[in-house]
């Protein structure tokens, strides 16, 4: 019986740190819904990793049902600079990072999708891409040390 209690205690002690990591990971993750300012995203990253380092952002695009959206688009509207949109990978993940003080922008981030099989030659972006209704960008931040910018 003592042996059994000891085994249970050992298992409990070994599981505790794992559970702790899981909670910490969940706390590290932030969710952004709908169009949101890029500055808000970067500010959240700076708050987490500190102001003196670059911010690396892992963004997982999920639908309203919480499922990952493969090959989603992360669209950045730059105002005067126009529009750019990057395709995420098959797991709906898109990575972007910002060197310290690299951006002073009023860009807006939004999530979009394109139906699979869409022929890009036939239509234009405005007609074939759609806002990801109820979409969520599940974001994790990390720091990185930027390489020297080449002149």
């Amino acid at each position, binding site marked *: 019986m003592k042996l059994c209690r000891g085994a249970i205690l050992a298992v409990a002690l070994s599981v505790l740190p794992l559970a702790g990591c899981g909670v910490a990971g969940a706390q590290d993750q932030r969710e952004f819904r709908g169009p949101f300012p890029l500055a808000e995203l970067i500010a959240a990253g700076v708050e987490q990793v500190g102001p003196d380092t670059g911010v690396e952002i892992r963004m997982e695009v999920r639908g309203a049902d919480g499922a990952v959206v493969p090959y989603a688009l992360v669209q950045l509207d730059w105002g005067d*600079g*126009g529009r*750019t949109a*990057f395709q995420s990978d098959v797991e709906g993940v898109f990575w972007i*990072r910002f060197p310290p003080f*690299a*951006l002073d922008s009023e860009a807006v981030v939004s999530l979009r999708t394109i139906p699979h099989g869409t022929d*890009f030659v036939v239509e234009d972006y405005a007609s074939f891409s759609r806002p990801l209704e109820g979409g969520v960008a599940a974001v994790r931040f990390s720091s990185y040390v930027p390489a020297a910018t*080449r002149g």
Partner: protein
Amino acid sequence: MSASTRPIECERRPAGRGARGRMLGVAAPLALLAFTGGAQDSGGGTRIEFDLHGEFVFDVDLTEDFYHRYRAGLFVPESEPLVMRATTLDDDGDVIMAGGKYLRFTWDQGTFDVRIDRNGLVVLHMDDQAAMSHLTTVLPPTVSSMAREFPEYPNHPIQ
């Protein structure tokens, strides 16, 4: 050549930088690219690739890069994404996809880096305004080559 075949574009745009008035400092490497680079028809479309090994790590002005194609109506940024495929060399010198590394994008809006996916791809949709904004890609030394691909029948998703 069939009407649906996109011609291989080897000639680069000369130093004239248009309204943006960019400096010759970027045009000169591009001109050098015209001589050091190669082009090949990959069957389904056109693939332009330049050797960027060693010290020849260039800034690639994307507007300059596809300008002729854009003017000829062979690349329509409002519809087609710009497909960039990056490769690097492994320890044995074999060419592999540069997944996990970053391409730096810099323009008058600022600077940011985008991670290359496991297939070596960065797929970028732009409107005309962004396409003409001289968005420049900077390749890190760890990326040995970046091809801009223009698939003949591009459809979603680009893989």
